[in-house]
């Protein structure tokens, strides 16, 4: 009985939390048009969330692609169709691994940075000081960071996939000896615009989810060292769960 009660209360708590996040999103969307005029602020945040995450994204993309090349080759060799390695790796990267792994890394690298930055701004009265200067912190600080993340995430996912494909090619063609011509031509023949679109839509939605969770957690962080730490942790955990959940929904929707 107690277990059911606890489950029920945590379920309602989660729903209330989700409602609060959605309301926050509406607030962001309402100020976004005016915030969009400040191109300098947004480009600074695209740099912070995107360019500064490039190394980790590219390295991870390369390794994921290489593993995919190796595993794919082992598997496809059993059926004598190693030439399909290009197709298999690309479909896997563009539709699934690119958006999902990039979003997980993005939450860990850029999401935590966003949450802790906003949390510390709250703890050191910087957000209150802005309000006192009649500057809306949502418009000046939160929305540019949110939009920066939303713009950076699909670009990072695309870079991840491209580097991943080269990683798979490196292992499959250069090391395992798959024919280069068939690797690329099979890939070009089998991967369609629909697959690419699926990847783009997924990475855009993950970008919105990750950035929203990060700015929400940071903005409403308790203004103490402990509170900021908790907000950072919650950003990663919530983002990871949401990314995987949304990934399932989106994959099902694209079938």
């Amino acid at each position, binding site marked *: 009985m107690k277990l059911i009660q606890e489950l029920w209360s945590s379920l309602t708590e989660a729903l209330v939390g989700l409602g609060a996040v959605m309301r926050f999103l509406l607030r962001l969307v309402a100020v976004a048009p005016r915030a969009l005029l400040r191109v300098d602020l947004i480009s600074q945040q695209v740099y912070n969330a995107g360019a500064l995450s490039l190394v980790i994204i590219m390295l991870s993309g390369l390794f994921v692609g290489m593993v995919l090349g190796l595993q794919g080759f082992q598997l496809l060799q059993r059926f004598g169709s190693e030439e399909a390695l290009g197709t298999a790796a690309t479909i896997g990267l563009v539709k699934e691994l690119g958006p999902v792994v990039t979003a997980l890394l993005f939450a860990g690298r850029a999401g935590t940075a966003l949450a802790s930055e906003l949390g510390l701004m709250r703890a*050191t009265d910087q957000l*209150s*000081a*802005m309000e*006192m*200067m009649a500057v809306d912190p949502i418009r000046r600080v939160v929305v540019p960071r949110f939009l920066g993340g939303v713009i950076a995430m699909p670009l990072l996912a695309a870079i991840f996939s491209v580097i991943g494909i080269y990683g798979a090619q490196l292992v499959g063609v250069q090391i395992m000896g798959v024919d280069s011509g068939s690797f690329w031509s099979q890939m070009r023949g089998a991967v369609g615009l629909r697959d690419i679109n699926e990847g783009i839509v997924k990475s855009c939605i993950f970008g919105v989810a990750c950035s929203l969770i990060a700015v929400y957690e940071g903005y409403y962080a308790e203004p103490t060292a402990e509170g900021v730490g908790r907000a950072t942790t919650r950003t990663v955990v919530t983002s990871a769960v949401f990314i995987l959940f949304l990934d399932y929904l989106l994959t099902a929707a694209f079938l």
Partner: protein
Amino acid sequence: MAYAVNGGRAVFSGLDMDIPRGRITAVMGPSGTGKTTLLRLITGQVRADSGSITVAGQELRGLRRADLYVLRRRMGMLFQNGALLTDLSVFENVAFPLREHTDLPERLIRQLVLTKLQAVGLRGAAELMPAELSGGMSRRVALARAIVMDPEILIYDEPFVGLDPISLGVILRLIRRLNDALGITSIVVSHDVQEISTVADVVFLLSGGKVVARGTPQELQSYPSDVVRQFIGGLADGPVPFHFPAPDYFGELLARDEDA
């Protein structure tokens, strides 16, 4: 005016204050009397549960967010820790309100910022980042930022906490000079009795959510009230108890023994 935290403990009940225009008003009181909360109420960061707060002729109750922002442009506030924006240099911090609210040409912004920094003696630190400043310097930069829009009301939240005697003297002189030169209405929240007595024109002493004394610093020295005597004299116990409410001391000690 009345205000309670989250509908629970009442911070103020029946608080009545009038802050004179163009003077330096000090708000003093023991820690936890809600001095900072009072500033948040005056600046509209929190809303009163009942009663009314009028700032520069405008009633805060029911004021729309946009109108509140218009009103805040006429106010400056110095936070306890300065609250400088850590990703901007000293110059950009002071220029921040100008850049956000005006379309002034860069040359004019530069002149205004340098004038204000000169007034607080930190023109030479314009290119430093907030992390490179001492506590006293941060507060002076924050003061320059608070006056850059030429406010009518300037609010200081505990401006003397943690300052060395030199920085403290500098801040005190700045408060006086800004008031004399610009005719700004200043509200200083503090519990440093000696320091505040040297600059304030009027002092309000708060305790238990009410004003317990009002007068010039000299009048307060001989005020016929136990609370005022305890506060001004710095006595540990009196009407403001030294101990936080707790169950009986010996009873609790013995109870712990039995538990063990």
